Structure formats: structure tokens, C-alpha cells
């Protein structure tokens, strides 16, 4: 990913750096917004500071890891079922 001028602007290293910085600022702002906005918790813990951020992140981490674990048993080559079909 060099800064070659022929490349699309979106994949330039400088753009990607900028995107990461902007994203981190936006992420921080959504959490800091809780200082101003009163979060109405329904079950107690969802009122905590940055609860949704941490919950969302951990939920995704858990789902990716579960998927990775199940992949050990479930993943097969993409032609697994097609073998018989090629004889058509």
C-alpha cells in the first residue's frame, strides 16, 4: 500500500491512517456522549458507562471465536457436495 498517485485515494496509506484516526475520535465521542445524555437503563447494568460499547465489542469477539471454533468441525472444501455433480 504505497502512496502511488495512480492508486485510488481510498487505499492510499495516508487515507487509511486518516480513516483510523477519524474512527477512533468518533468511537470516543459516542462513549463520551454518555456524560451528557442520560442513558435509560432497563435492567440496571445497561446504564453503566460505556456498557453498550463494551457489550457490543465483547459480543462480536465471542461470536467470531465461536464461529472459529465451530469451523474446526464444520468447514469443508467448497466442492465437498459438488463431487457427484460434475459427472452430470
Amino acid at each position, binding site marked *: 500500500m504505497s502512496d502511488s498517485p495512480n492508486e485510488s485515494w481510498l487505499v492510499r496509506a495516508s487515507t487509511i491512517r486518516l480513516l483510523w484516526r477519524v474512527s477512533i475520535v468518533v468511537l470516543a465521542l459516542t462513549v463520551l456522549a454518555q456524560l451528557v445524555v442520560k442513558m435509560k437503563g432497563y435492567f440496571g447494568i445497561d446504564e453503566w458507562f460505556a456498557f453498550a460499547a463494551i*457489550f457490543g465489542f465483547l459480543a462480536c469477539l465471542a461470536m467470531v471465536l465461536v464461529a472459529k471454533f465451530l469451523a474446526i468441525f464444520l468447514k*469443508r472444501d467448497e466442492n465437498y457436495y459438488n463431487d*457427484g*455433480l460434475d459427472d452430470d
Partner: protein
Amino acid sequence: MTELLSPALILVVSALLTGILRGHWRAALILLAPIVTLWAVWQVPDGVMATVSFLGYEIEPVEGSALRRLFATIFAIMAFAGGLYAFRHARWYELAAAQAYAAGAIGVCFAGDLITMFIYWEMMALFSTIIVWCGGTPAARAAGIRYAIMHLLGGIILKVGIEGVAVHTGSINIQPMLASNFDTWMLLIGILINAAAPPVSAWLADAYPESSPTGSVFLSAFTTKTAVLALILLFPGEPILIWIGLYMVMYGIIYALLENDARRILAYSIVNQVGFMVCAIGIGTQTALNGAAGHAFAHIIYKALLFMSAGVVIYRTGKTKCTDLGGLYRTMPLTTICGIIGALAISGFPLTSGFVTKTLVSQAAVDQSLMLVYFLLAAASAGVFLHAGIKFPWFVFFQRDSGMRPKDAPWNMAAAMVFLSLLCILIGVFPTLFYQLLPYPVDYQPYTAGKVVFYLQLLLFSGLAFFLLLPLMRRTRTISLDTDWIWRVALSGAANKLAKLFSDLGIRIEAQSSARLIRLRDYTGQFFGTHSKHKDSQDGHPFRSQPIGQTALWIAVLLSAYVLVYYL
């Protein structure tokens, strides 16, 4: 007389005419028929319009209510948007089948009794199978047959349930019930098969991605959502649906995360989204049923939009695998933007349709103090952003540069995508307008500062998780096994073994019987003195015909076993 005619019949006529008309006339028909249908849908008043007696049953071909009109409206809108998307590219028989399929869905919406519902239900099974076959490849043919078997099986189970309810209660009325006896369980299972509920969720991701780029747009809209409507009408508040729904939500996410085929990712996310609706129906309060109906409406729009953007990519590049795609935003900006709008809507971002309908379902869980359900749905919302909201557009339009520079969408496909994108945003920005269409009065405000901040945190941090975990999500050229492995591999393998066993047995029996015949002939020869006892006298015609007949029989048995196994 006219009160006996369902609005669905307009699309039936249009489907029949599609094969006859040519050129501009056909295009006009395909675009206008859904609009006329939409008008007719809104002419249906509340209540049963008329009844006819048939074999001692009171048939109610047309029954109206806000809920029924809501579903029929979105089906008519989809017939229009799908028609606009497809009419220049799909073959005429795919277009005709799509209209008949939509007619079946709208017919189910207005069916006042179980028999009418069943007829339109089977009509959908029939014409959706044809759409799968229109994929045109050997894989599509095989998937279509598996799809047909699954839906015919579901139809039989549904029929058993209907018969049971009719015989034991004497009524074929569509009315709320609980799964409390054999009949109602059969009814529930028959409907759930169409909703792609466990353990047979696999049919959806098996069949839809094999259809043509235009066909999958139609397939994504009708079958599962009519099942949702049927569940709302027949089983609101059935507690087991909460857990079935939650299972579907998680199943969809996990399988979509493992998947490499772009349209199969979207297919798994249908199961995930229908899971939200099924869960809401299980909760069963007015807010929950509003949420289920509203979410079905919003879902049909953004899921069709996502399938449209995937369809354009396949139409232009011929590729569907994430491992082959990437970097297409350079030359397909409109398709990319529409795909992203669909992705944001399915993730339930504020200002999109998904936000104003999905939060209704969560609110229903809160109202009933279902804490576990609420948090699992919140986790699933994060997971939706992960698997459909970012994964789909990222791997198709961004990630690496695949080197492909395809043209953007043809004008009609672009128009259909822009139309649905606008609907996604319109519903998201003006929720109160949309809430008026829902079956029950809505006392709910989606845009409170607290809720918006909660969902922004939840979704944006899921996005962060995606990019941090990207090394774990490298695409591989693989598929994931599902319960359909049982009938596609285990059962068919067992049947093959059985066939081999029979054929071996046949050969042995044949050998034994010829030996016996020789003995018999020698014996009779001895008796009548017509043949000598010589070993070389085996070629007598009357004695050879029987083993040949047996061989033919065994070949027939084998062939039937083979045909059966092959199509499973």
C-alpha cells in the same frame, strides 16, 4: 361476485400474460400489474368479504385487516421493484414465475381460512422452485429439487395439521391458537419449515444462492415472510417461538461469519432477521407483533436491496465468492452506495428502517422484563452489523483490489436499487408515518437520545471489533456443513450401501437360481428323456429367460434407488 376475488388474482393474470406478450408490452405489464395490485390491496376493507360453501367448509377467499394489508403492500411493492430490476435481464418464464410467486404470497395475506391459505402456500412452493431452477446450472437444478422436496414435505405436514384442526374443531378459520396438541403442532411445524427454522434452516442458504442474479431478489422476499405472517395470525404468543427465534438469530450470524459466497452470506442473514421476527411473535404482545410485522416490512426492502447489489456484481463479473471479489467500489459507485445503505439498514443504524423496527422488538422484550432475551437480541444486533453490515460490503466492494473493473448497474437495476434505498431512509427518518401502517396503535418513540447513543456505541464498537479481528476472518474457499449433511451425505450414503447390498444379493440369487434351474432341467430331462445329463446343454431358451427377467427386475430396483438417492 367481485368480493370473492383476491387482489392476488391480478398477478396471476399478469403471470399468464407474461408468456404471451412481447417487448414493451411485457415490460409495461410487469411494471403496471404490481401497481394495480397495490391499489386493489388497499380496496380490501377489514373483515371477511364473502364466504362460499365448498365440501361443507366455509371458504373465505378474502379477509382484510391492517396486518394483512401491510404484508400484501410490501409484497406488491417487491413485485414492482423486483420486476423493475429484472425485466430486461431475466428470461420470460422467470418473470412469469416471479409474478405467480408474488401472487401466492399476496393470496396467503388475504386468505380467511386454512384451505385457501394452503392453496396459495403451495402455489408459492411451486413457482419459487421454478425460480431456483432458472439459475440454469446443474447445481441450481439439484438445489431446486432439494428445495422442492423440503417445501412439499412442509406442505404435507401443514396439510396434516389443517386436516386435524378441521376434523377436531370443525373450523378452518384462521384464528390465534397455541401448539397444544398434535394438529396444532403439525400446523406450527409446517409453517416453521417455510420460515427456515431449525433444524431445517439449511434449505434457504442451499437454494437461494443458486438462483439467477435476478431470481434471488424475488426469493428473498416472499416465502419466509409469509411464514412470519402466518405465525402472527395463528401462533401469536406461543412461548416456544421466542427460543426458536433466538436460535435462528445466532445460527444466521455464525454461519454467515464462516461463509465465503456473497449471496450465501445474505441468505444466512435472512434466517437471522426472520429469527428477530419469530422471537417477537413468541413474545406476543401488541408491541411485539407490531415489531414483527414492521420488521418484516423493513427487512423485505433492505434484504432485496442487498440481493440486488450482489446481483449486479454477479451480473457484471460472474463471480460470487468473497475470495474472488474486492475493490469494486472504483467502478461501481452506485451499487456500492446502495449496498452500504442496505447494510446499514439491516444493522439497524439510526435514520434507517432497521432502527425503527428492530428497536420495537427490543422494547417488547423490555416491557415483558425478558432480560436474557433483550441482551441476546442486543448481542445479535451487534452480530448483524458484523456479518452483514460490514462483512458483505467490505469483502465485495473494498478489501483488496481484485483487478476487475466492471461497469456499474444497468439503468433499470440502478433505478430499482435507488427506489429501495430511498424507502430504507424514508422509513428510518419518518417512523411515525410508517407506524400508522402497523396493525396495533404505536406508543413508541425510537429516537430518544439514550437509545441512539446506546445503538451507536453498540454498532460502532462492533465495527471496531470487525477490523481488529480481520486476520481471524480471512476468507477461505470452503463451505460449512449443516443439518442437510444428514440427507445429502449420510442418508444418501446409506441408501447407496443398501443399493449395493441389494445388487450383490441379486447377483447371488441369480447365480443360485440358474444353478437350481440347471438342476431342474437335468431333473426334468431325466424324467421326460428329452435332454441328456450333459453339462453343455445349458443354452435352452426356456431356461435362460427367467434369470434375465430377474436381472431386469434388480436393475429396475437399483435404478430407482439411484434416482432417489441422486435427487436427495
